[in-house]
């Protein structure tokens, strides 16, 4: 098969880190080539170089045998390279069709020809089996749909080589399957795909070849047929990774969190929680399973004081905390790892040390009256950076320039370190590599073993089943059933997640 992309000895040096170190990567026509590596290994950087967003410090790029210099994304697009970023870059108030054609619109008498745009979008979307509604506003469609729009946008510009940077991190299991179908269709049309993911399962399911990167260096390129998840994980992390989390025996204590008939509205003012009752006890992890959008986010927000409960009661250690302010909730010793780390979890333009005290900056440990104790804040960050292996280990780094996995580590360090009575973990491992997932899982279980209550919300059923002691299934704002983890299997949970009552 013909080689379409060849990157030779690519290096990229940032002020504090060598993100890429003499990387060689070749992608063949019509293949799905996976990039695998820990958080911060340099995958996104490498792809940003290929897409012309960054200039390499050294090295060469060849497209179809021709040496090229990709000085900006327009050059990349002209060469047939398209990219869908880890974070989408759509304009929410425009329609799907408008977003897709934006920048190279079909014109008529010098004006945007909307009818033609819609027709063209429909044509491509049919050809590759990417169903979208061209007239819908982007802000009103699901994340999975938005991703399709991004892919269509690339295809509309004549992409031959499509880069997908962690496309599955934000998708539901069903949407992931649909994405894989789309990727297959693109493949049969002769397009090449570079696919970044942390999920070994996904790689085994869809990739042809895999390049493993560790700390900026290529470790190996292997064919999927000749490898195994275990081998991949070991290559990527540089040691054996255990997929199984060891837990102490389940012996739940007193009830920490209690919800009684809690109701709440979503941001569109429609009922999202329709009477949730559940409890989480000391020394247990209660997992909330469900298809995305069934009230999980609202449930977490209500407990964290970020959304008003319209009815019902929330109690922490028998104290009523219904509709308490976030500060009160924090003071009541509830920690919260939020599902969207960019929206809520971090102030991206703050440094690591500032983010580490986002909830505690005013407490005696970090402030004398209203004057911040910067020395203390710095020491605190230094300690957590070391304990949680945040890279780069520099507390003055802006959160914005950390890799996704390290951003998550900052949040987890902050939340776990507060030694809470209740730890709420919403999608705690979204976008993390297997090594980091193992780390987060161990931390969550450690909290449980220390006698804390943990409320885990995840779309990843494997994660729910691996960690939870009990599993509550949420469907359309109701808990349809709560089952002991050892009695649960995927089929049964799947059945309940579709609305069938448990037991």
């Amino acid at each position, binding site marked *: 098969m013909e080689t379409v992309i060849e990157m030779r000895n690519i290096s990229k040096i940032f*002020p504090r880190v060598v993100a890429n170190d003499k990387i060689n990567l070749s992608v063949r026509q019509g293949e799905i080539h996976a990039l695998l590596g820990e958080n911060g290994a340099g995958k996104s950087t490498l792809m940003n170089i290929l897409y012309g967003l960054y200039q390499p410090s050294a090295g060469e790029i060849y497209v179809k045998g021709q040496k090229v210099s990709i000085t900006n994304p327009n050059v990349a697009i002209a060469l047939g390279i398209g990219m869908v970023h880890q974070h989408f870059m759509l304009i929410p108030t425009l329609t799907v069709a408008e977003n897709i054609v934006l920048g190279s619109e079909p014109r008529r008498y010098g004006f945007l020809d909307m009818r033609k745009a819609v027709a063209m979008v429909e044509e491509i979307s049919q050809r590759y089996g990417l169903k979208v509604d061209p007239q819908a506003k982007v802000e009103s469609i699901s994340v999975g749909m938005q991703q399709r729009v991004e892919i269509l946008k690339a295809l509309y510009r004549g992409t031959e080589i499509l880069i997908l940077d962690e496309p599955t991190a934000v998708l539901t299991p069903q949407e992931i399957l649909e994405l894989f179908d789309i990727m297959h269709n693109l493949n049969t049309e002769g397009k090449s795909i570079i696919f970044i993911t942390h999920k070994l399962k996904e790689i085994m399911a869809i990739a042809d070849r895999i390049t493993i990167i560790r700390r900026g260096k290529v470790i190996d390129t292997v064919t999927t047929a000749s490898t195994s998840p275990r081998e991949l994980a070991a290559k990527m992390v540089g040691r054996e990774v255990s997929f199984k989390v060891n837990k102490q025996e389940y012996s739940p204590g007193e009830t920490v969190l209690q919800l009684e008939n809690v109701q709440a509205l979503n941001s569109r003012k429609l009922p999202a929680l329709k009477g949730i009752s559940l409890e989480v006890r000391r020394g247990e992890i209660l997992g909330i399973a469900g298809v995305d959008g069934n009230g999980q986010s609202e449930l977490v927000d209500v407990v964290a004081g970020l959304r008003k409960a319209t009815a019902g009661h929330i109690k922490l250690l028998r104290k009523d905390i219904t509709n308490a302010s*976030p500060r009160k909730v924090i*003071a009541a010793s509830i920690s919260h790892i939020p599902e969207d780390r960019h929206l*809520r979890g971090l102030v991206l333009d*703050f440094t690591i040390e500032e983010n580490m005290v986002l909830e505690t900056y005013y407490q005696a440990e970090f402030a004398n009256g*209203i*004057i911040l104790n910067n020395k203390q804040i710095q020491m605190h960050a230094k300690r957590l950076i070391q304990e949680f292996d945040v890279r780069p280990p520099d507390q003055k780094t802006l959160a914005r320039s950390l890799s996704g996995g390290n951003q998550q580590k900052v949040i987890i360090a902050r939340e776990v370190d507060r030694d809470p009575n209740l730890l709420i973990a919403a999608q705690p491992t979204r976008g993390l590599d297997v090594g980091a997932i193992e780390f987060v899982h161990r931390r969550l279980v450690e909290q449980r073993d220390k006698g804390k209550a943990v409320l885990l919300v995840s779309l990843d059923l494997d994660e729910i089943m691996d960690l939870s002691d009990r599993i509550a299934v949420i469907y359309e704002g109701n808990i349809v059933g709560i089952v002991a983890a050892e009695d649960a299997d995927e089929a049964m949970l799947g059945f309940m997640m579709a609305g069938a009552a448990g037991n």
Partner: protein
Amino acid sequence: MGKQKIWAKDLLEVAGVPAIAIILGLVVGAVAMLWMGYNPVIGYQSLLRGIFGDAYSFGETIRSMTPLIFTGLAVAFAFRTGLFNIGVEGQFVLGMLAGALVGAAWPQLPWLLHVGLALGAGALAGALWAAVPGLLKGRFGVHEVITTIMLNYVSLILANYLIRNFFRVQEQEATANIAPSADLSIALLKQASGGARIHWGTVVALGLVVLVAFILYKTTLGFEFRAVGFNPHAAQYGGINVTKSLILSMLISGSIAGVGGAVEILGVFGRMAVSPILPGVGFDGIAVALIGNNNPFGVLFGSFLFGALKTGAIQMQYVTQVPYAIIRVVIAAIVFFVAIKELVRRILRLKRREV
């Protein structure tokens, strides 16, 4: 970068882009002069002389930069909390009125106390005036740009109305002169410089620069303001009362502008006259904050730049007949080039995206 302070990092930004913008702005001014038939070399020479030429010029430069420090700080402060306080102009005007009234009352008070009261009155007036948009924003989410702009005109009409109907003296369209016990001017320097209106308000302004920097970067309050400004969702998650921060920040911003207004009366004008137009220093404050990258020390730099250009331009017009408006063009061009700094960077191949 290990030990670098946060504000110093902001300051780094301040240096690069504005320097280039200033050069480009001066080039635009030179082209405009050429086009209108003036010699830009001679024009700029007399401009420079008008800024630094003698003690009088330099004193006047200091005088005209002083109100810009206040208004620039006010804009920058609100901006750090994510607010566009376009209403600094109006808060400044009401600060002037309050300062003039308190400054004229109680002539028997000791100097420090009287000055303190008058400045406090200015701060209070500015804060109250900013409270309106602050509350509307905090409580109902009404965008502050709309409300603050509208209130600017209201403030002018209100001040004129109050002076005409309640506070004017005899046949004049102005308030009474302030008492000597509230006078901020520095007679010694005034004489030594041949009449430049140098006053203690500049010292107050400098103190405020340090105080604002301290509040923003060294206190829990500043932490909250900056968190809200960067990401209100994360701030709320962190337990920060976003509504309270927005309102409080607006109040502080308004009081900074109000003190500036009072200083201008106590230090320069001595009384407040009915005026058909807004003084304009509030709007200039927006430009000053922009060029100073909303950093307190950057504001100091920006206000010096604009104060100098404005003072120098008067001399330039007087000596070489190059119209004053040219300098407004230069200022506008500088603001324009700072605002499109991304483009400036690219033109000059200063691509520093990865930083």
